[in-house]
């Protein structure tokens, strides 16, 4: 890491004693000093540097005993809403939203999917109708992770149903405290309700919370999704994530080892290590700017490896693998893919190849947008949405 940046962090820490300050005040000051996400522009929590420098900055803060912004609580805000607001937001929007987002004072969720618009996200039916300086939104969203903790949402809605599906959508920043927002827990296979159904009834959104132009929602949403796929697929250190968990089980339990399991574990070790290197290489290629469809390969690999590793761990544990920690329905404050017990990890990992675009859709994206292979025949692409929608 460059010494200038190191100095900057040192100077900041000299002026701001993390032990003497309130957590939020410290985080706000760190943001204002441009040390929140160094690749963001000056004035918005960054210094316009390379993203690759960030882990070192975070490490220096950690070593100084500074509080972090609890990234696990706000993954959608940090991983998706922030880069999209940065790319498409007005100055006023960046000023209003980015700082409390980064500090974790405002948690975000993603109101994209609907019962009829999962893989086919461009089929959203939630309607936003302009009323003076406001938009009035009605519809139903589903599988909304963390909506019960969220202050704001990124929202995709249809603003013109007479246009073909990809052209009639607009992207909004929705206040989850609006009285028309009704969040209902949706329990999932792990027992807990991490996601929700969200009913929107005459929700009023000021036009100032529109992100991008009217009708440009699909383009903005794609920027969000590319960021989502890269953030779900990222992992920095060797043996981090699911591999770290399973490797330590292996090291702690010599009694469970068999040649068969050993071979399978080592294959997955190699897969995970190569995925890590591929991710590093991809980040070096991107350096800055918006991730493209190539990032989809990372998420594909991440999901497969997490699923195979967690499945292997249950088998490895054998008798103990037949246990489960707790089926009680709770609405968790944050989600840890690698937390709790082997059974939980196994079940939760099943979502990794569904959330943020299924693995089948990601393969289509790689095949069509990266490799340029011809797409499927699309019956509904060029006709007005209202004629194709059922």
């Amino acid at each position, binding site marked *: 890491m460059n010494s200038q940046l190191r100095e900057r962090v040192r100077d900041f820490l000299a002026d701001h004693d993390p032990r003497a300050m309130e957590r939020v005040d410290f985080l706000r000051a760190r943001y204002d000093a441009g040390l929140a996400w160094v690749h963001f522009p000056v004035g918005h929590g960054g210094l316009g540097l390379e993203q690759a420098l960030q882990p070192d900055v975070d490490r220096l803060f950690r070593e100084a005993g500074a509080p972090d912004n609890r990234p696990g609580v706000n993954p959608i805000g940090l991983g998706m809403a922030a880069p999209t607001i940065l790319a498409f937001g007005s100055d006023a929007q960046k000023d209003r939203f980015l700082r409390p987002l980064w500090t974790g004072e405002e948690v975000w969720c993603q109101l994209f*999917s609907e019962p009829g618009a*999962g*893989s*086919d996200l461009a*089929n959203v039916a939630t309607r936003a109708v302009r009323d003076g300086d406001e938009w009035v939104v009605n519809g139903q969203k*589903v*599988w909304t992770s963390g909506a019960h903790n969220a202050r704001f949402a990124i929202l995709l809605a249809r603003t013109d149903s007479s246009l073909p599906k990809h052209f009639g959508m607009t992207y909004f920043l929705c206040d989850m405290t609006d009285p028309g927002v009704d969040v209902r827990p*949706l*329990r*999932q*296979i792990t*027992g807990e309700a991490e996601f929700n159904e969200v009913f929107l009834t005459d929700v009023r959104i000021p036009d100032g919370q529109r992100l991008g132009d009217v009708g440009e929602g699909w383009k903005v949403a794609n920027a969000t999704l590319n960021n989502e796929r890269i953030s779900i697929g990222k992992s920095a250190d060797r043996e981090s994530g699911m591999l770290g968990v399973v490797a330590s089980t292996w090291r702690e339990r010599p009694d469970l080892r*068999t*040649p*068969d*399991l050993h071979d399978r574990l080592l294959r997955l070790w190699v897969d995970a290590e190569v995925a890590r290197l591929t991710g590093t290489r991809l980040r070096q290629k991107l350096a800055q700017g918006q991730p493209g469809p190539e990032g989809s390969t990372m998420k594909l690999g991440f999901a497969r490896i997490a*699923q195979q590793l967690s*499945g292997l761990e*249950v*088998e490895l544990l*054998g*008798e103990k*693998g*037949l*246990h*489960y*920690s*707790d*089926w009680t*329905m709770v609405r968790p404050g944050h989600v840890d893919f690698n937390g709790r017990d082997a*059974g939980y990890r*196994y*079940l939760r990992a*099943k*979502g990794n*190849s*569904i959330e943020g675009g*299924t*693995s*089948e859709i990601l*393969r*289509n994206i790689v095949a069509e947008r990266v490799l340029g292979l011809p797409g*499927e025949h*699309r*019956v*509904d692409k060029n006709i007005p949405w209202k004629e*194709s929608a*059922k």
Partner: protein
Amino acid sequence: MSDLDLLYSDIEEDLRGSVRDLLEDRCDSDAVTRMYDGDRTVVESLWKSLTELGLAGLLVPEDRDGQGASAREAAVVLEELGRAAAPVPFLTSSVVATTLLLEGDSDLLAPLATGERTAALLVPWSLAPDAEIPAVSIDDDRLSGTVSTVAGALEADLFLVPVAAGSGLSVYAVEAHEASIVPLVSLDMTRQLADVTVDAAPGEVVVADAEQAVRRALDAGAALLASEQAGVARWCLDTTVAYVKDRKQFGRPVGGFQALKHRLADLYAGVESAAAAARYAAATLAQADPDAPVGASTAQAFNGDVAVLAAEEAVQLHAGIGMTWEHPAHLYLKRAKADQIALGTPGRHRARLAGLVGLPG
């Protein structure tokens, strides 16, 4: 090797029909799902009506109050129980415990066959037929010890307990009320496990010099678990095929996308193969064929993984709705994953096959 019949007789199909009808009536997936929240009310009435069909006595000769049928019929029942993720102690009591009691002349076999009583063999559910059998100790005719992760213990009123006797094993019968039973939060709550402790409990010998008898009972369990796994896989395939025909995205049924068609064609081949492996294991077991252990381990090594794959594909191809509690796919995922470990993992059975078929490592 002459070919054994791997299809189903008319009688077997009739049996399947009546079991399926009963399960459709009495085993709805919402009631089964409630078991994860501790409501086990579905079990008792369902098991009672299954025993009224005589199913508990399928493996027991008529002169000992049974139906005088065979492992082939029991396998058909298990296919259906798997297809419904049914939470009944058929495999643990009517197959494993019953097979063990058939090796002795205990009077306890008859009430098991009629369904009056239900038994469980006290071994960890993950125990492979060729693994070391944990045994409790005996002192002055009283049994003491703990056996962990036992299947069928919560439904049983009678335990068959392996007891260390000199250099060998004997199996004692112990009344369930003489033991303390701690239910476990289990990955598969439709076959909830328990730790069972006996502390100076009285018991009577039901099979002496029982090590081989216990192994044969576990082997029968492994052979027939393969049919349950085939049934689990079958449900997953059928339900998923129906769903992708119906679910539309991009203006068309998602089942029309070749990526899904190929996956489901492969899965179909896997499920058919699982049925063949299960049928062979049941047929060899039914006629005490010397190839029965090979049949059982082949079926376990294959079907354990196919059932898991089928359930994983069901979740993936249902996507968001497949990750929800309200859709039954998760019942099958959890059952399949627990079944993969039950009575020995596929890896364990492959290692056993290495010895059985002369391919040492």
